């Protein structure tokens, strides 16, 4: 199966006012195998979103390489995206701004269908079915949907391009707590069903635990721990991971305050 993503020693640097620089991503390496679900966890400002954008070619690399099936991912700039990179797609955090408010949902999914290889091309109806939305949704505009529904549409659109890699940049962060796990699971299921690997980025380790096979914990631009979900969840080796885990309040009705 094609679609191997290789990230090697990636550095991304932002310029700050006054000649200062911020190393948003500071030497990150990992692999994403076809059909794999990798969870990337970290708190705000750790560089996880930057990393996601870099993988999609939205941020220029300062150093290191990102390769997709052996071909380098180059920064998008003002060019049209090269064909082989179209097989990396992304679902964004804010469902209110990730859909074009002026175009019907169906049309936006069609855009994605157009770039899928003809042999693998799906249909709008099938994609809507996949994300458990009414087929009638295709004729509506984004503002007629709730946040969770829009995120489903965004997933459908991304999947319409038949990607080999789906990147979810905090796709559940702006949803109600009661929806988060559900949408995350759906995203995982849809991705795997259509033969894509998933890079699922979140600040919430408990949700990542539900969807990911492997998890990478990021702190201050670096990956501090990586491993199978169960291992990391049950026996974290890195102190930061331990702290992160301990801080999660559990809905057990016992009134246990998380460790600060």
């Amino acid at each position, binding site marked *: 199966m094609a679609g191997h993503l290789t990230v090697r020693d990636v550095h991304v640097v932002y310029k700050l006012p006054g000649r200062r620089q911020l190393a948003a991503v500071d030497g990150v390496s990992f692999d994403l195998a076809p059909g794999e679900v990798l969870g990337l966890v970290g708190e705000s400002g750790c560089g996880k979103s930057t990393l996601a954008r870099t993988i999609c070619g939205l941020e220029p690399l300062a150093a290191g390489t990102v390769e997709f099936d052996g071909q380098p991912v180059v920064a998008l700039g003002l060019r049209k995206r090269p064909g082989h990179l179209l097989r990396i797609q992304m679902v964004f955090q804010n469902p209110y701004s*990730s*859909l*074009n408010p002026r175009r019907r949902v169906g049309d*936006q999914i069609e*855009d994605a269908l157009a770039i899928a290889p003809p042999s693998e091309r799906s249909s709008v109806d099938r994609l809507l079915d996949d994300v458990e939305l009414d087929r009638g949704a295709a004729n509506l505009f984004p503002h007629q949907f*709730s946040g969770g529904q829009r995120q489903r549409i965004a997933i459908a659109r991304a999947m319409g391009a038949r990607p080999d890699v789906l990147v979810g940049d905090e796709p559940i962060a702006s949803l109600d707590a009661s929806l988060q796990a559900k949408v995350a699971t759906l995203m995982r299921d849809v991705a795997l069903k259509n033969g894509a690997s998933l890079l699922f980025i979140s600040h919430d380790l408990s949700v990542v635990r539900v969807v990911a096979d492997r998890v990478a914990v990021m702190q201050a631009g670096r990956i501090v721990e990586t491993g199978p979900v169960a291992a990391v969840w049950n026996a974290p080796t890195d102190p930061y991971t331990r702290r992160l885990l301990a801080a999660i309040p559990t809905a057990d009705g016992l009134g246990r305050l998380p460790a600060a």
Partner: protein
Amino acid sequence: MAKPPGGASDSRLELEADAAATAVYDEVQDDRAGGSGGSAGPGGSGASGVSFSALRNRLRLPPTFRRPMAIIGMSIIVLWFLVAIFVPWIAPYDPLAQQFDRLQAPNAVNWFGTDSLGRDVLSRTLYGARISLPLALILVVASAIIGSVLGAVAGYFGRAVDEIIMRFSDLVFAFPTIILAMIVTAALGPSLTNAVIALLLVSWPSYARVMRSMVLGARSREYVVAGRLLGFSPFTSLRRDILPNVAAPVLVLATLDFGNAILLLSGLSFLGLGATPPTPEWGAMVADGVQQFSDWWLAAFPGLAIFTVVVAFNLVGDALRDSLDPRTAGAVQGVKI
């Protein structure tokens, strides 16, 4: 607003559909989340309900125009355009014929009096609509097109292109419009065509600025990025994702700018740099009134004509602006100083 709690809907969407239906409940919180979340009308509770209300909305006057001030503004505009079209049948006399006693105060024959050459002020004022309205329209449309294209290009492509276009527009912007237009008309010679050209040269930057800032804002919107990820070329992206979403503000700006265009054109004519006599142009007519100061009717009526047209366009533009998302509305103040 609230959907009756018992109302069943497609069960698998339930939690979300309900959340949407009640989105307005926690207004304070939802607005924070950004976007127009709270404005979702009937929610996603089924296609049939949506299309029904859509139909109902289509048959009704858009809410923007239901405000009394907007209605007044719209009526005045329609009235003036009707005047401009049908003036040969409406106007009592030939606007150019010097057939009456000079400088008559308003009376039964000449409702608005006569001017210093014995022409009927009412007829001239009505015919003025034929001069000002089309010219202002041309001016606004042309400068909106030029400015928007330049602004969109500057905003989307950024860097050197942006730098060059925007520095140039800053330069033009720095000059008070009327002074710059004055120099240009003085150079080209006074005529309405030249006045329009001069104003065109000075009025595109406001569109360029608004367009640029909105394209700049839209460019980083996630749906634009998503489009690029789907392989849209920059121009496709600009055409399909960005322009439809920034067109409304530009249209509003153009409406607001229409009033400005009329003010500037008449201002140039007032200074003798616009309309050539005996064209019954409002600004030039006011200028005539300056010479015969005590004969108030010479200036009063054409001035009133300018004022009503401008205020009408501003009323409508204002109402339109209020219907925009507050964030973009901020960019479209539409007032040049």
